[in-house]
């Protein structure tokens, strides 16, 4: 991020930092860049930011939740500072904390961000989604009622007009996505010192028949939670511990109720579905290989939270694999 400092200007004692965003894809390079972006912004929350889209030809779900999450973080930071300093005369002249230069943005991306509802939350002046039930970008300030999450998925995302699926596969996809949200609410909204939102962005790609979803919370992250809960000092080991079936930091449940299945269920489903799962937290990213093992690798920056991204193949051909029940477990009933 240091190369971006060429655009730094001083305005009312605050740096104005212009960040030329590159194209951001759902791949290793994309996640690595996003981790650096979060690190950089969180190290300078007092600055003013302009995100410049002139070099960005595309930005996928993971990029949108991180960009939206950063904006959410900066706005909450600024609100906290204003509350501390009071609403004096000077606050009327506070420059805009986060803005976007979209003058060089290509028309396809411009339309896509509007349709996805990205600007609805982040910068409504750039055009909001007209359809309230759009599939796309959302910020969740409170824990949604379970029925609300499911209704949104069933009635907004996976309707018969948009996605052709058997009811059985639809139920399994909804169940997996619900596990992602439950994890994010547990780590992201409960006990989050910054009172930040959980951010989600998802969409269906008709050509690939795939559904992609990213859910971000900036509530400290899994590694942080595990290290507070256990005596594990290595960050990589802490992430691996969290991904093992049965391990849970119990952020959202009584201590005597068994938990720790969310990531295991997701992993099993994604593995047999032939999809993609990425979990990026702190300075590590975990993915699964073709045999269902987690591969962890270091990223260049640090996400002070947890980003879970999945791509699910919405194709009943793959559902038969799930039904064959290749996932080893005891059969008690």
């Amino acid at each position, binding site marked *: 991020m240091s190369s971006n400092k060429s655009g730094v200007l001083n305005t009312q004692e605050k740096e104005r930092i212009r960040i030329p965003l590159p194209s951001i894809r759902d791949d290793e390079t994309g996640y690595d860049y996003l981790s650096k972006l979060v690190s950089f912004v969180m190290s300078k929350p007092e600055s003013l930011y302009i995100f410049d889209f002139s070099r960005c030809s595309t930005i996928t779900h993971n990029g949108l939740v991180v960009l939206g999450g950063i904006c959410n973080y900066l706005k909450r930071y600024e609100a906290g500072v204003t509350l501390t300093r009071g609403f004096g005369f000077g606050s009327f002249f506070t420059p805009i904390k986060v803005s976007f230069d979209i003058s060089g943005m290509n028309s396809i991306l411009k339309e896509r961000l509007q349709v996805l509802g990205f600007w609805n939350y982040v910068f409504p002046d750039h055009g909001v989604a007209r359809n309230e039930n759009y599939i796309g970008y959302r910020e969740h300030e409170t824990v949604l009622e379970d029925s609300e999450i499911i209704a949104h998925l069933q009635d907004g995302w996976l309707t018969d007009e948009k996605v052709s699926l058997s009811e*059985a596969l639809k139920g399994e996809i909804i*169940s997996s996505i619900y596990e992602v949200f439950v994890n994010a609410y547990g780590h992201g909204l409960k006990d989050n010192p910054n009172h930040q939102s959980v951010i989600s962005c998802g969409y269906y790609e008709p050509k690939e028949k795939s559904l992609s979803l990213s859910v971000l919370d900036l509530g400290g992250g899994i590694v942080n939670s595990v290290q507070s809960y256990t005596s594990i000092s290595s960050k990589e080991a802490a992430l691996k511990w969290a991904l093992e079936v049965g391990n849970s930091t119990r952020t959202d449940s009584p201590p005597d109720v*068994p938990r720790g299945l969310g990531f295991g*269920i997701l992993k099993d489903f994604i593995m047999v579905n032939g999809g993609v799962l990425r979990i990026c937290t702190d300075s590590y990213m975990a993915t699964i290989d073709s045999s269902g093992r987690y591969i962890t690798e270091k990223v260049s920056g640090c996400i002070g939270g947890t980003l879970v991204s999945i791509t699910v193949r919405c194709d009943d051909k793959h559902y038969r694999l799930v039904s064959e029940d290749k*996932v080893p477990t*005891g059969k*008690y*009933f």
Partner: protein
Amino acid sequence: MNPIIVKRLVGVNAISMSSGRKLRDEILREWAGSEKVVVNFEGVEVFASPFFNSGIGFLLKDNDISQLQGKLVFEGISDHGLRLLNLVIDNAIRFYADSENKTVAGLNEVKKDI
């Protein structure tokens, strides 16, 4: 003995811990006075692990798996729901075995008997 109709209890989504708690309370109400407790899932469309953790897995805190198998009968449950139920039970057995310093050998013994 009337079956517990899960749809009537929690609706078509059996997903949350609080819904699972409702099922558990209902099972425990029937537990002592009935030879079998029948849990009917007809019409339930979506399942998730928090529901089963709270509704069924928690019962293994005070009962072993053979007691559950002897008492509970599940009807009308989807393949996905049943797979999730078994996964939750597997995890709950390990969870309570560890907290009471039992060994995983107990789990393996249970599996042999099934």
